[in-house]
């Protein structure tokens, strides 16, 4: 196994690195300045390539059917049709309020709850209890990340069909109550950082393993549990594939499917040229919560991602 890294060690290294490299900046020659300049040009060009598509999405949402066509393209639509957001969201024959309800209440919240609960239990077993065969089983957990989901999709569909679960959210939610390898790994990393003395003290006070977990370990790892809940919620919010297969009837559509059906719905309304402004309007609205969450929790997102992927 590669060495395990704690986030503290990383930020320490980062702090050291920045103080050390500041001194070097003073000794830059002309070529050094040119490389510096080039670096920022590349950075800004890259940043533009990441930002402009989203700007284009949001600005196109405000366009009318003439502004969509022009060469060169319009980057600041005038008049800006703010109504498009409202009209697109309320397109007849679609029901985005219902899709939001389906996505959040029927899918994302139960999925996040199940993921946190089950992954925490399993991670506790792999980090705080010493049992024979534990490391072998944990290796197996990590190995399952490599099993392609397409190999099991046909039998799972058949099983869920036989159970009568098609067009309900059960095929999407129930599997989340059985742990997720990535999140088990992430939580295990956090649980390992807690000194065993704490569990031992609780044990002497007469606590059993469940009590140690719920009263000692989980309260100390709330930030990590939040990361898992956030990621699991977002996975469900963004999910297109599982709903496409299991809950593909209009009363059960989630937001991702609703966005996909948008174009056809606009065509039905008879104004095909509004298809893109409307599509971009709902796309913007669906992306907005992700953007807001990311804006306020950037560190959490980035630390979470680096922790799940850090092992070689």
């Amino acid at each position, binding site marked *: 196994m*590669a060495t395990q*890294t704690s986030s503290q*060690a*990383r930020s320490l*290294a980062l702090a050291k*690195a*920045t103080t050390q490299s500041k001194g*070097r*900046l003073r000794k830059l020659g002309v070529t050094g300045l040119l490389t510096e300049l080039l*670096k*920022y040009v590349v*950075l800004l060009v890259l*940043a533009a390539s*990441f930002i402009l*598509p*989203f700007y*284009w999405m949001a600005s196109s949402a405000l366009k009318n059917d003439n502004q969509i*066509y022009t*060469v*060169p*393209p319009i980057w600041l639509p005038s008049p800006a049709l703010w109504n498009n957001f409202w009209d697109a969201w309320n397109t007849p024959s679609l029901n985005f309020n219902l899709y939001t309800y389906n996505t959040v209440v029927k899918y994302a919240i139960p999925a996040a709850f199940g993921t946190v609960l*089950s992954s925490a*239990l*399993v991670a*506790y*077993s792999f980090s705080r209890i*010493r*049992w*024979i*065969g534990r490391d072998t089983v944990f290796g*197996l*957990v990590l190995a399952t*990340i*490599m*099993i*392609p989901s*397409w190999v*099991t*999709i*046909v*039998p*799972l569909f*058949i099983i869920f069909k036989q159970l009568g679960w098609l067009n309900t959210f059960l095929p999407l939610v129930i*599997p989340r109550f*059985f*742990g997720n390898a990535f999140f088990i790994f992430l939580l295990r990393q956090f649980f390992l950082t807690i000194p065993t003395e704490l569990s031992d003290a609780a044990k002497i006070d007469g606590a059993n393993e469940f009590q140690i977990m719920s009263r000692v370990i989980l309260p100390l790892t709330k930030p990590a549990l939040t990361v898992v809940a956030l990621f699991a919620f977002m996975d469900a919010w*963004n999910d*297109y594939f599982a709903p496409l297969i299991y809950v593909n009837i209009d009363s059960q559509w989630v*937001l*991702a499917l609703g966005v*996909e059906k948008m174009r056809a719905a606009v065509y039905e309304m008879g104004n095909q040229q509004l298809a893109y402004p409307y599509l*971009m309007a709902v*796309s913007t609205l669906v*992306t907005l919560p*992700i953007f807001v969450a*990311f804006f306020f929790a*950037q560190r959490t997102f980035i630390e979470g991602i*680096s922790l799940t*992927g850090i092992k*070689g």
Partner: protein
Amino acid sequence: MARAIVNPFRSPAERRNLLLGVIFASPWIIGFLVFTLIPLGSSLYYSFTRYDLLGDPVWIGLRNYNLLLTNDADFRVVMYNTLWWVLISSPLGVISAFLMALLLNTNILGRSIFRSVFFFPSIVPVVVTAFVWQFLLSTQYGAINGVLQGWGFPIIPFLANPAYVKPSLVLIHMWSQGSAMVIFLATLQDVPRTLYEAAEIDGANSWQRLWSVTVPMVSPVILFNLVMSLIGGFQNFTLPWLMTQGGPEKATEFYAIFLYRNAFQYLLMGKASALAWILFVIIVLFTVLVFRVSGRYTYYAGGGR
């Protein structure tokens, strides 16, 4: 790891711990059996049958495999598309993530802002990515063709021409490498400064430091990202499904799209299961191959695993 093999039921404390450990791990163990292992077995069984969900599965032996491997022009096209995609998009995706991380790991102002900007596209709903890029690349309404036209260039049918559509999808793939980039960045920040200092004292220039310090030190993570990307690449579905529906002229009819059609549009569950198992075997072979080849080039600080 080197634990002597002893009687697992040596002491009551160990017995108790084993029981507790298994109880706490039971969600995963049960889930693995029910949602992975048993379906894996039944999909192998279905792959030897003809099954349309209405009647019972009919055993037809190796027929599904036989037809696919020897007598299916579509399968050959799909295989070509998929191998093209994996061999081009995975290395390019990993390289672009690595280069972005290298850039962000240098001494720059506003690093966390750039990092967030580079990362954000990878957490956007894939439906949104698909439609925004479809719109941007459109010949009729697209901003990119609009700009090109404004500068006097001809229109480029990015998604409408079979020759351009796969490279266009590769670009979008490289555009959404934020997660891999963040993983690289965290690893780069863990490379001990002393190694760079030692290299500098030995007179290594920055290019040499990159090749003899940075790349070896992060090679396990390069391998990890490459393997994950290969596995993902073989299963590439949502983006081409939403953007091009496998077209134009089947140029983006990838393996997973073909499997999806057979399973859920034509209800050929037997054939789809055979496809799934062929995919599984290919992915395992590829992964083993990558680990074998990379073994020589990958450096583990702990002295191997």
